[in-house]
């Protein structure tokens, strides 16, 4: 009984690690620009497809394919910022417009993938011998699950190092407090935007590749995951990076618990119920800053 529980927790952490990549991306964009980048859904699928194509068509090894996918997704992310958000950001448009613009980027990316690659589900082309499990007594853990969790935490650690131990990271943190004052102090807004959208592009590509390995690669793959990553980032407190990681791990564990003990069909319903209940009792999320709408 305890062993089953432990197994579920471990599976939950491995899913939660993938969510946390996306949730941190949401938190990062939100902390500086105060809007939710709805386009991660598309970026994630794009990253997975690029990894898929790099291995399938260009015969790259896995690590090279990952870097290939990261770079292309980061380029797409920065491009979307330049074309869709920067003009709005510059004229200080209402957040509603930013969200609609992001929604537009998402619709365009997902449906372009859908047209070019068709909607069928594909297996991510990794060598068969990689798909093994390690057994610890009665607990068994999939090798790719471990790899996903490790790479996710390495990415998060790198991001943390970057934000808290470098000058550029300081610029991002300062901008998250007040972007206009930061600009007055000589922090280039464009550079901050570049960094943020580069980082979130890379994170969503990693999430896409590992989600593709765990389940399948298809254009609409991002839909359900990104909703849950958003929920996780709200649960942790919008705009809070440690909150996003905490929320993701909680949500991942809750999900595997629900699918293990209740019903896998209603897994996502529980995720949503968690959001509603949490909003009732912790309106700012678990680790969110205590503040209302920014003026």
């Amino acid at each position: 009984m305890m062993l089953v529980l432990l197994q579920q927790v471990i599976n939950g952490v491995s899913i939660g690690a993938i969510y946390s990549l996306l949730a941190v991306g949401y938190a990062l964009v939100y902390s500086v620009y105060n809007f939710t980048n709805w386009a991660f859904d598309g970026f994630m699928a794009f990253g997975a497809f690029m990894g898929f194509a790099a291995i399938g068509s260009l015969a790259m090894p896995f690590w090279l394919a990952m870097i290939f996918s990261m770079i292309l997704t980061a380029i797409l992310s920065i491009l979307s910022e330049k074309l869709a958000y920067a003009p709005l950001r510059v004229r200080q448009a209402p957040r509603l417009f930013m969200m609609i613009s992001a929604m537009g980027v998402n619709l365009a990316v997902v449906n372009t993938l859908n047209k070019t690659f068709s909607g069928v589900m594909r297996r991510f082309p990794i060598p068969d011998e990689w798909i093994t499990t390690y057994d610890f007594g009665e607990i068994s853990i999939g090798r790719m699950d471990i790899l996903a969790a490790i790479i996710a935490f390495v990415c998060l650690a790198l991001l943390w190092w970057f934000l808290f131990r470098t000058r550029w990271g300081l610029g991002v943190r300062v901008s998250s407090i007040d972007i206009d004052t930061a600009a007055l102090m000589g922090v280039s807004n464009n550079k901050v935007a570049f960094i943020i959208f580069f980082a979130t592009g890379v994170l969503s590509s990693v999430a896409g590749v590992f989600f593709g390995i765990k389940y399948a690669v298809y254009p609409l793959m991002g839909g359900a995951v990104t909703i849950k990553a958003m929920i996780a980032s709200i649960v942790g407190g919008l705009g809070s990076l440690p909150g996003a990681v905490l929320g993701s791990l909680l949500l991942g564990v809750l999900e595997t618990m629900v699918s293990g003990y209740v019903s896998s069909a209603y897994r996502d319903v529980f995720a949503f119920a968690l959001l509603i209940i949490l909003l009732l009792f912790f309106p700012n999320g678990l680790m969110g800053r205590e503040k209302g709408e920014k003026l």
Partner: protein
Amino acid sequence: MKPANKLRKTVIGLVTAAAVAAGLGILVKIMGAGYFQNILILVGITLIATLGVAVLTGYTGLFTIGHAGFMAVGGYMAALLAKEAQVPFFYAVLGGGVFAGLTSFIIGYPAFRSRLRGDYFAIATLGFAEAIRLILNNVRQIGSITLGGAYGYMDLPTLDGSIWSWLPKGGWGPVIVVMAFALVIFFLTHAFVVSQWGKTCIAVGQDEVAAQMMGVNLMTTKMMALFISALYAGLAGGLMAFYYGYLTPGFFMITRSSDLLAGVVFGGMQSVIGPTITSAVLVAVPEGLRTFAEYRLIVYGLFFVVMMVFRPQGLMGYYRMDFSILGRLWRRREPAKAGGR
């Protein structure tokens, strides 16, 4: 615009509308009625739901991408009422709409209470829609009622002119019913928007803090806007149930919510006539051109961005409903005058 000038434009606009209607009539004769009846019904249904999104997103500034969920709730409720409880068509649709409006409180209250509007609320609507769809996908049976899960809720009574005996039998009956609904909703929405209640919604949409200082209760205003828009979506869902004669959870995917949002964003964020026109176009064009339908969502997406960057107020901007808009289409190049539109 001077009143006399406006009157002239209105007359010209009405004539234009009549000419368009006559042209459509001729097209119907040429291309066959059945095809147009289907398009008109779909336009009417989409229009009702789109106006709901217009009230919520356009006027009150609350971004929603989950109105398909309210359509599903309204549709299934109306279908249940009509099929299992033999409630007459009209009351079944109304009941579905009101029920959808009431369920909106489930997401409205916690989301509005937390004071952060945009993102929380949008995700809550999205999550709500997905949760509803998942539940409907998995519930096959409630007691003696067969909902059918993913296969769909089958054998519903259909809209075939037998609802009211005086309606024409056959093809045009449902069109008249749906269009009557759409017209009533259209004028109700217009009346709402120019009323005191509508003005508080606009105030909240423009600046919450300023509105609150003027004595607007944010919670009730937002709840009201959400209730109205969910009610409309529910009515649209009910009409859909009786038009198709069956319902499946697949009708209520995220793409449907995107379509509704597209109608409002393209038509004008603070306009009733704008979303009306664009939602008609957005339904009719993909129905007419199947090749366009496949690329529709890519085009919508790019258009969302282009609109927000270059013309965030939408094609119709802040125009009020009146026919002088159509009249102005014929405007000759007049020498520019200072002041006034």
